């Protein structure tokens, strides 16, 4: 397991550099949007990665609620933290792309709003973890993750209906995608997934170590108090 980490790190670095090369040089320039469309190769993989991480957080939270395994809680924590970072990348690159293409920074479109609400829910998740005292944090955080997951379909339907009543936003049309573009997109997606796995992994190890240190310190201070008596 220990040797897998540097291997994954090297793989991530290779994929990320190849992905960057592909996004900037290999992929053809989009006809209507021009060069700015290249942000797509970072925007979309970030979104997919963020959603995967949020899903991992939910799965780990449910496992924690059933099994009470502290490792599951550490995974949930790491996934939520890294997920929020990737989701922030999505929310920042989105407007940068939207401004020159749609002419507006932001629109209350279904996907945008859903991403924003998910981001808000997970930021509140992190705030909860930060402010609750250590013993109760895992249970409360896991419960909040479940509530957040229940909320997603409701948000989806509410925004979907909200949007069908109001003027439709100008969304970049779907249609077919150039195979070279798809290739670069998939490479970048693989690179971002590896990167996320790498960061999550080290964050998870850090969290496990931090808990071990805390436990040892608590034990030591107990022993000291016993010796003084």
């Amino acid at each position: 397991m220990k040797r897998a980490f540097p291997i994954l790190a090297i793989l991530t670095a290779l994929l990320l550099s190849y992905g960057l090369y592909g996004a900037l040089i290999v992929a053809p320039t989009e006809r209507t949007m021009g060069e700015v469309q290249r942000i797509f190769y970072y925007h979309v993989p970030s979104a997919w990665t963020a959603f995967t991480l949020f899903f991992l957080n939910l799965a780990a939270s449910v496992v924690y609620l059933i099994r009470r395994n502290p490792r599951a809680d550490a995974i949930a924590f790491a996934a939520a933290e890294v997920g929020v970072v990737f989701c922030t990348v999505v929310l920042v690159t989105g407007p940068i792309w939207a401004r020159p293409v749609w002419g507006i920074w932001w629109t209350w479109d279904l996907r945008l709003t859903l991403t924003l609400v998910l981001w808000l829910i997970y930021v509140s998740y992190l705030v909860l973890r930060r402010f609750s005292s250590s013993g109760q944090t895992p249970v409360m955080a896991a419960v909040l993750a479940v509530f957040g997951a229940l909320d997603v379909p409701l948000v989806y339907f509410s925004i979907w209906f909200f949007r069908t009543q109001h003027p439709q936003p100008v969304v970049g049309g779907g249609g077919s995608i150039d195979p070279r573009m798809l290739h670069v997109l998939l490479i970048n997606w693989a690179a971002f997934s590896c990167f996320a796995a790498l960061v999550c992994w080290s964050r998870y190890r850090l969290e496990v170590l931090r808990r071990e240190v805390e436990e040892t310190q608590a034990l030591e201070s107990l022993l000291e108090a016993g010796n003084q008596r």
Partner: protein
Amino acid sequence: MSGFGITRATLAKDLRLEWRSKDAINSMLFFALLVVVIFSFSFDPTAEESRRIAGGLVWVAFLFAAVVALNQTWARELRNQVLDAYRVSPAPANALFLAKALGNFIFVSVLEALMTPLFIVFYNLRALGPAYQLLVVAVLGTWALVVNGTFFAAMSVRTRSREIMLPLLLFPITIPALLAMVEATSAILTGEFSARFWIVLLAAYDVVFTMASLFLFELVLHAE
């Protein structure tokens, strides 16, 4: 004592406490009044516009005011370790949660009943759609605020800086419910479109989160 008996006893105790102290209702009322006055200063709308924005104003005012009451729900039980007593007692956690949620529902409903005439006066409101639906929206919307609010208040009371924590947890999750309440109210006031979808969505939200709260409350109460 059965679960129903515990619910009734806790609810009766909370109502009696509130009736004698009037802490929650007074602070909520004054807070909502301040919000209404500040809103009407900052917007100063015509009758036509106010019909459009009133749904948002009303529910945002009620949401903020409800947080004041929700924060006091469990804080009261911390004094003299009442919450710890609940924890060690064999009483089902659900019954306790239901009593607290019903109590908050009554407080917020009283607030709404008292504040609605004020909104009508300040904003010259008159419903152009079917007004009886407003009652349905009010009941479902209030329950939506209160059921999650009571649950998250039980969580935030166990954190540092508890008063600030509740809105931070409650608002993101409440977004679809709030959107539904606001849109349904605007739909009824303007009479331009049907509020049916939003009422159904609110009902779905209520069912989902009532079940989730009843199911998960025991975990939160016993989290240690």
